[in-house]
């Protein structure tokens, strides 16, 4: 009979990989991990491009009061979760500034929505007679407890969200970087912004139950932040974000499997370490992707010549 000590990393990578995927729960973890990484990466590229990391944070947390409310009303928690995620997204989309994403007013709206929803969560907890544990599980997810049904749901969600993103990809990029001109050219900037937030809300609502709030937030922000440090091309940026997201997730799952430490820790640490390394490398090298070039200092509002 195999004991815990048999599950340690060896130099035989193929054997390690077979060991890793030996159990059904790990196979499920990898399948769902892959799907979530791709989805979070694709959505996350736009989140970082638009400067909406705070919105991503809000989306990853705003669902829980909804879940608690649903349980209180004897509905399945996922219904409440999805409802609150959607409502949060709509609130930000409607109450934020019409054209700019990720600005001060939006931050204030996001903070207010998040505070309000967490307050509601407090209320529902008080009213709910059951254990807090079930909702704690939402917070950290259950990457090791993914059923085949969870896999199916994730597949459907990923496909739906990716198709929706692909449909609005071009005008979304336009509205994200140049809203005034996009508006003038006929892009419905506000509608596209709201549509994007709704896609993000759906992606988060479904995946947060599975991978937890920490992980979905990390995957929504970190890979995009890394990728956008390295490239300013949308096509390459999007691809790189997805690649990094997959890398963090697979590596994190694999390393966690052979140790006693939690999966979330490894994924977020790897992501953070990568980001710091990229920033450090750029600061040291000061290559053309840095800021040194001609003429900048001269173009101040005072109009002093170079």
């Amino acid at each position: 009979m195999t004991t815990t000590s048999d599950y340690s990393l060896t130099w035989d990578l193929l054997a390690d990989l077979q060991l890793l995927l030996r159990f059904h729960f790990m196979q499920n973890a990898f399948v769902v991990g892959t799907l979530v990484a791709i989805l979070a990466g694709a959505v996350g590229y736009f989140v970082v491009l638009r400067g909406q990391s705070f919105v991503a944070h809000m989306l990853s947390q705003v669902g829980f009061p909804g879940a608690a409310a649903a349980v209180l009303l004897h509905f399945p928690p996922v219904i409440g979760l999805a409802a609150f995620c959607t409502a949060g997204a709509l609130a930000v989309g409607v109450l934020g500034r019409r054209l700019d994403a990720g600005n001060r007013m939006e931050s204030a709206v996001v903070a207010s929505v998040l505070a309000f929803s967490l307050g509601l969560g407090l209320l529902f907890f008080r009213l709910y007679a059951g254990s807090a544990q079930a909702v704690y599980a939402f917070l950290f997810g259950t990457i090791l407890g993914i059923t085949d049904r969870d896999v199916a749901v994730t597949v459907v969600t990923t496909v739906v969200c990716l198709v929706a993103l692909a449909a609005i990809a071009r005008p979304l990029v336009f509205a994200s970087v140049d809203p005034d001109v996009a508006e003038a050219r006929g892009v419905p900037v506000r509608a596209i912004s709201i549509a994007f937030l709704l896609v993000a809300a759906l992606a988060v609502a479904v995946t947060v139950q599975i991978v937890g709030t920490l992980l979905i937030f990390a995957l929504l922000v970190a890979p995009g932040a890394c990728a956008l440090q390295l490239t300013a091309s949308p096509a390459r940026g999007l691809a790189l974000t997805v690649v990094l997201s997959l890398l963090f997730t697979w590596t994190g799952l694999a390393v966690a499997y052979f140790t006693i430490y939690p999966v979330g820790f490894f994924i977020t640490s790897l992501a953070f370490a990568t980001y710091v390394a990229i920033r450090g490398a750029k600061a040291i090298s000061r290559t053309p992707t840095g800021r040194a070039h001609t003429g900048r200092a001269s173009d101040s509002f005072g109009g002093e010549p170079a």
Partner: protein
Amino acid sequence: MRHSVAEPESSERAGPLAEEAVGLERAGVTLGGRFVWRGVDLTVKTGEFVAILGPNGAGKSTLLKALLGVVPLAEGQARIFGKPVRRGNDEVGYLPQRRRFDPDLRIRAVDLVRLGLDGARWGVPLPSWLAGSRTKSQQVDSVIHMVGADEYAHRPIGELSGGEQQRVLIAQALVTGARMLALDEPLDSLDLSNQQSISALVRDICQQQGVTVLLVAHDVNPILPFIDRVVYAANGRVVSGRPEDVIQTETLSRLYGAPVEVLRTSDGRVVVVGQHEPVTYHTHDHDV
């Protein structure tokens, strides 16, 4: 004022009938229930370089936006190249009054220009090895070349200087093959040498490509040598006139409600002095 053959002031030219680029008839626009301007009759010919002047709040930007279809007319008619004004018209390129791009915005100049071409279409762009896309890439490259931005086209827009950004944005406005350029205070935040070079670029585009130019200016001096006509907005009205009529001390002082002097330099250049208001950082309420 142009030193080449002066344009006759009548609406006919010696030659084939020039096409009307802009036509406004009894036009009026409201903002918050009040008319910004009304009863406006205005004609601009194809290929003309028009400066739009006036004090702040007179509705210069609004005039551009009305012609772009972004702001609807409350009264009257507006036509671009003989057809009713509509939003998303590929024939008109637009440079809105803008802050600088966020220095941390991670998108390349060339991508920004490409967005001007097909950014408003749904879906994803086809990969470049498909024939249709190659033409698009070529279009982008050629317009970037036209504005002289080849060297820095692949750098992030946020890292470019003000003058470089303006060139890229002009390329973005022209990439659809626009026959008209609507520029809202494009020289505002540039230093003197950049003001001159951008003005010259716009003049070249106007002359060589036959592009009609509507340029809202805070300070008319950099473009004074190039303009064919002056449109000025003030006191709820918009009127046009020849540069030599409008660029006069009396006219301008009345127009701005402040002392403005038109001087001639020793080498015959005309300079307008005193029309600067204290430097303002334009706050952008996007609902205006």
